[in-house]
């Protein structure tokens, strides 16, 4: 169990982490999300005492990290795969870490094999790819088989097989009852990996809860209908107060009415339906919505969502160029949109 209470860290006049409080429970993967510069890495460094917080603290099973003897047995952390001397071999890097906690060299060989670096163990780290360094960092995390695991962007540089591997490893570790906190920018990965989310922006807590709750709370919801009587149905829906947008002459997207309400309205007006399906935005959509006001660095112009694929599974609302764009555009834009 990790407990963060009132954590605050300033760099000069910049408040990187501001009164941040949250818990990370064991037995599940907790995703730590936030835009660039939101304070995720600073928070993790403060948790490990690498950065000195100005206020608040972090406790691992009730204890401050600095008070833990041989922490590799209790807290394994990978904050940056670059924290290695390029002139040292991967095996020697781990041997030095292991020795500091009294872990035998045989365990180093075990974890090197476990992460798939057995053949590269004696090569200098300077010749490792980023993915190999990530695996080396993970080997360091696993050295003492700790019950708490902190990972900052562990999928950086990993190939698809590596990403799947790390997802399986973390899910497996959480299944063993370990406490796993992992930050990532790969929201699709996080959607598959995390059970719980902690979302921060500009150093402050934005939301915390299960992935399902977070998406339900922050992502857009709409109903998709395909019907040969789409135009007539759209008229009745608008009369009922819903916002309707045409995708094509037979497909409409409805906001402001549930699928039950749409179905009943269609039946009442004898409209044939070829499809009636509730739609929900993705974790990415929910994340962008939740952090819209807390992004320190963002590109000029609209933030595009997932490629206009509003019908397919977890994909989100379409980009502004599609007919639905106006529906999702901010109030200042032309909200009359399409045939609404």
């Amino acid at each position: 169990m990790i407990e963060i209470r009132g954590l605050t860290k300033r760099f000069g006049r910049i408040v990187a982490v501001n009164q941040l409080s949250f818990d990370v429970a064991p037995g599940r993967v907790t995703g730590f999300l936030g835009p660039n510069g939101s304070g995720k890495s600073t928070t993790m460094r403060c948790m490990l005492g690498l950065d000195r917080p100005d206020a608040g603290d972090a406790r691992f099973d009730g204890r401050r990290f600095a008070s833990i003897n041989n922490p590799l047995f209790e807290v394994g952390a990978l904050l940056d795969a670059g924290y290695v001397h390029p002139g040292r071999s991967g095996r020697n890097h781990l041997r030095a870490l292991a020795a500091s906690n009294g872990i035998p060299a045989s365990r180093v060989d075990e974890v090197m094999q476990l992460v798939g670096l057995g053949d590269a163990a004696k090569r200098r780290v300077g010749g490792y790819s980023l993915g190999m360094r990530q695996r080396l960092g993970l080997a360091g995390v696993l050295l003492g088989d700790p019950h708490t695991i902190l990972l900052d962007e562990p999928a950086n540089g990993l190939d698809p097989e590596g990403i799947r591997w790390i997802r399986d490893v973390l899910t497996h570790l959480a299944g063993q009852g370990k406490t796993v906190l992992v930050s990532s920018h790969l929201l699709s990965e996080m959607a598959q990996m995390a059970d719980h989310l902690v979302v921060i922006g500009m150093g402050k807590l934005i939301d915390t809860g299960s992935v399902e709750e977070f998406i339900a709370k922050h992502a857009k919801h709409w109903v998709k209908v395909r019907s040969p009587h789409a135009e007539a149905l759209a008229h009745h829906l608008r009369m009922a107060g819903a916002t309707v947008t045409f995708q094509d002459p037979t497909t409409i997207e409805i906001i402001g009415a549930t699928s039950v309400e749409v179905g009943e309205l269609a039946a009442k007006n004898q409209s044939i339906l070829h499809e009636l399906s509730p739609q929900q935005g993705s974790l990415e959509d929910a994340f962008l919505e939740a952090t819209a006001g807390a992004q320190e660095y963002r590109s000029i112009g609209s933030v595009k969502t997932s490629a206009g694929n509003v019908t397919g599974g977890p994909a989100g609302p379409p980009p502004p160029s599609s007919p639905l764009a106006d529906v999702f555009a901010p109030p200042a834009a032309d909200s009359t949109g399409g045939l609404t």
Partner: protein
Amino acid sequence: MINLMRSEWIKVRTVRVNYVLGMIAGAFPIIVVALIAALTSDEQDVARNLVGAVTGTMVLTSLLLGVIGALNLTSEFSHNTIRATFAAAPQRIRVLLAKAIVTLVSTLVIAAIIEFVTYLVGSLIISSRNADVVLDGSDKAALIGAVVLAGLLSMLGFGLGLLIRNSPATITLLILWPLLLESILQGVLRAAGVEDPTPWLPYTSAILMANPDLNSSDPSRLHGGLYLGSVVIGLIIVGLAVNKRRDA
């Protein structure tokens, strides 16, 4: 603490630059003393001055060992490995002390080996030229003093590294300390009316530890060692305090 020292010893042994610098530090006095012993025309004179040649060249070796001592610490900051180190062992003072002990002990052992080999090579060459090398008390004290000087300079590099945390800046300051800083300090002291500023200059007075032919007006070897040792301890204490508070 033993585990931390084992960890630091692994770090020292597994970086190539330490071997390269150590070989340069070792080769320099051996080659120079061998050349002096072999090429000086008056073999009796070189036999009398062998210890002076050994300890004189050991001063440069000590400076190079000081660079290794500084790099053992500053490379942790320049490669950010200090974060991995502190994440594995969060008691910073203990980690840094373990690093200092390993650096000091390894420097003393290496310096003693280099000095012994240098002396052995020089005396073997001189013996082959039918001259005898005789060690008196002052020679023995200078030989010991040269090893102690190496240890102190490695700790000076370590202490500077603790404060500066940057390899090029630390090494530059370590080398400029005797060449520039103490020259400036000497000038200031003379201007202030100090007739002989040597006792007030930590490096200059400590270097006398390696001198087999001290004048009666020179500060004693003990004075030089204690003075530089005090400066080094002061630097390390301040460095430890600063590093305990600073972000890693």
